[in-house]
């Protein structure tokens, strides 16, 4: 079989027809920062952390199809500066108080900030007023931490077959809404075993009573860089 290749930061990367740049890079052991992407779900392309330069143009690696001979830049100073700004934007847009968050140390937003050398939030905070929903017996929805990656939306729709979540509003007024007559999570079909309840990369959807099982300081990203963790999780198993 003919092998297709493109170059990623000068390195030759093989890909199979239909793969995205992200999939091919991950398979080759190259980390491209991402938050809304998850290999188990349909690519979304909204967080833009995976912005790479393809033949000189900015593209989202998670949605862009790999093609023969592309020249792709990923780990450059300029792109990482762009990604750091995007991460800072996600921080100031919501209400992210890492020291008081149950997800600290297991949060991909926080870990991405570490990996990109983010030292402050840079931009003025929006301090939005968002509703916290504690109505569900087993699951907490803290909208202050939502980054609109829509992983819960996709998981509930495509895996759980329930369509518990959706995005309403527009622009900076976006909000995560819940499919129940009252709009409360407690009145929805969401169960703690659902993929949608487990998939949140930040601390917006939390399983109650398990927040501190692993002490802070010993959690995933306290001990490992997100680059390694992500690759270890997402590189497809070889036969």
């Amino acid at each position: 079989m003919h092998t297709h290749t493109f170059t990623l930061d000068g390195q030759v990367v093989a890909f199979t027809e239909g793969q995205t740049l992200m999939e091919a890079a991950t398979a080759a052991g190259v980390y491209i920062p991402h938050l809304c992407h998850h290999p188990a779900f349909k690519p979304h392309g909204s967080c833009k952390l995976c912005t790479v330069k393809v033949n000189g143009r900015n593209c989202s690696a998670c949605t862009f199809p790999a093609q023969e001979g592309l020249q792709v830049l990923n780990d450059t100073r300029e792109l990482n500066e762009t990604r750091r700004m995007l991460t800072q934007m996600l921080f100031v847009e919501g209400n992210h108080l890492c020291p008081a968050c149950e997800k600290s140390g297991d949060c991909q937003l926080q870990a991405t900030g570490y990996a990109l050398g983010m030292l402050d939030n840079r931009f003025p905070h929006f301090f939005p007023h968002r509703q916290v929903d504690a109505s569900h017996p087993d699951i907490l929805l803290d909208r202050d931490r939502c980054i609109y990656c829509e992983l819960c939306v996709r998981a509930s729709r495509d895996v759980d077959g329930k369509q518990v979540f959706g995005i309403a509003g527009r622009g900076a007024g976006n909000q995560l809404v819940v499919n129940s007559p009252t709009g409360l999570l407690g009145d929805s079909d969401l169960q703690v075993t659902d993929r949608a309840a487990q998939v949140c990369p930040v601390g917006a959807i939390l399983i109650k009573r398990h927040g501190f099982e692993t002490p802070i300081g010993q959690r995933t990203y306290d001990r490992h860089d997100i680059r390694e963790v992500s690759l270890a999780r997402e590189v497809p198993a070889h036969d």
Partner: protein
Amino acid sequence: MLFILNGSFLMHTTDTDIIALTGAILARHPADATALLPILRDIQAACCHIPHSAMLQVSEALHIPLPQIQGVTGFYAFLSDQPVGRYDIRLSDSISDHLLGSRELGAYFAKALGVEPGITRADGVVSLAYTACTGLCDQGPAGLVNGHALPRLNRQRVDEIVERVNRQVPLTEWPSAWFEVEDNIRQTGLLLESTWTPGAALRQTLARGVAATLEEITRSGLRGRGGAGYTTAQKWRFCREAGTAETPRYVICNADEGEPGTFKDRVLLNRQAHAVFEGMTVCAALIGAGEGILYLRGEYLHLQAPLQAVLAERRRAGLLGRDILGQAGFDFDIRIFLGAGAYICGEESALIESLEGKRGVPRNRPPYPVTHGYLNHPTVVNNVETFAAAAAIALQGATGFAALGTEKSRGSKVLSICGDCERPGIYEYPFGVSLNTVLADCGAESALGVQVGGPSGTFVARSEFDRTLGYEHLSTGGSFMVFGPERDVLAIARNFTHFFAHESCGFCTPCRVGTALLKNTLDKICDGHGTPFDLVELTDIARLVQGTSHCGLGQTAANPILTTLARYPERYQARLKAIRFEPGFDLDGALATARALTGRDDALAHLAQTETETA
């Protein structure tokens, strides 16, 4: 007419009423997601909002999850989950209306009605709000009442409106002259001067043959008139070649003319509707489509009935429907779909999402609409003017069309001119015309600058007026806003920046957060709190939004700042404070609640923003 219901809707509506109304509305529409937006528009018109119980009822009837209905309701500016007034008045907030004193008029209007803009009056009778450009820039200040255009507002008209609103006179009894929209055609060309014999281009197409007509379109060099400038024949060919012979195909006319300062499609649809529909039908013949949709922006509700009449006339003449012009198997019809106040739906994939009953969020591409468009089928989406031009080419052949314009920009372009000029209105020119010529024709020789292509386009300064219009030089979808020598460049950039922040769909991080940051930072500078640090931040954020956004909206949202900053850096500098840094957080503003609680307003209850202010 639904707007009559607005006037007669009971103040104390019971749940039973809502169930009955919603049921009646559902019965009038197909029971699937493609009817969601029309259904919600009807409920909004009948109930002045989308009540929660109606959402549940629609959810059940259409088998659509509730979050999608909430999502759509919250996305479109003309839908709301809280009641607006039975007289729902919206004033255009376009810069062209500002230049005509719309904000002062708005304040007068609000006071006369006894309302706060954006808040429905306690008796539920009336609400007043600002809305994005209504496409009446040549006859502003303009607005809408229950969706119907209200051009040429002034204080006297406002007084008369207030009087009728307070007496609750139904809209049908308001003087019809108040709703008359003028065409203001100042200069005609290939598209505007032709008198159409309905069916002539179609007959010519069938006589010449489908392949030969596509060849004519190719030879004409026609490119999309919406702004992006994609080669029309190429798009049609891709769509024709996608799928199999049995694959359903669609022709969509993008009449969601939302770019502020653009109103040429409004006039084309009013004057040359036959040409537009004929262009769509020619396209259908060429690509093998069975269904056409005209996506008409909600602000152009006043065009709906006249356009329906033209469609009916064409059906009677055998130019739409089954076996068009007696050609067996040539079945094609067109329906009109009304938008509901979302600029982003002018982006073709967002427009398709909107047609499918979703929020207008642009899709990831590839795949493109030509292969995976409406309902995932091959779809051609073209601008109103593109279809009118295609019809002209189908009728007259490519030669005359291609002789006009420049090598890369063939044919003519219809401009909508507004702002500080003596003769605002519609002007058609061959491509390649210089700004100097246009400005002389519209009476604006002393202009400070022109915004070419609307907020997403370019601010062109006086020193550049020898530049010419065309895809290869200065591209425009038609918007041409003139600014006089006394205008404030920052106020213009600020209006446009607010527009983009308001219209961002919120899908991607750089546009959702970045447009809000641009707005806040530019506000800070305009309000006299900006420092050199803020100007650097403004530039960095602008470049990020431009470089990483998901779609054209975000990629152009920073243009107003970047293009004016490049030309008038001194005007930005002049607004800055001498200190290096000032916090974006409003210290004094944060004490407002405490002052209100303690009833204090003395000097010690206030905080200076920086030390220099106290000195």
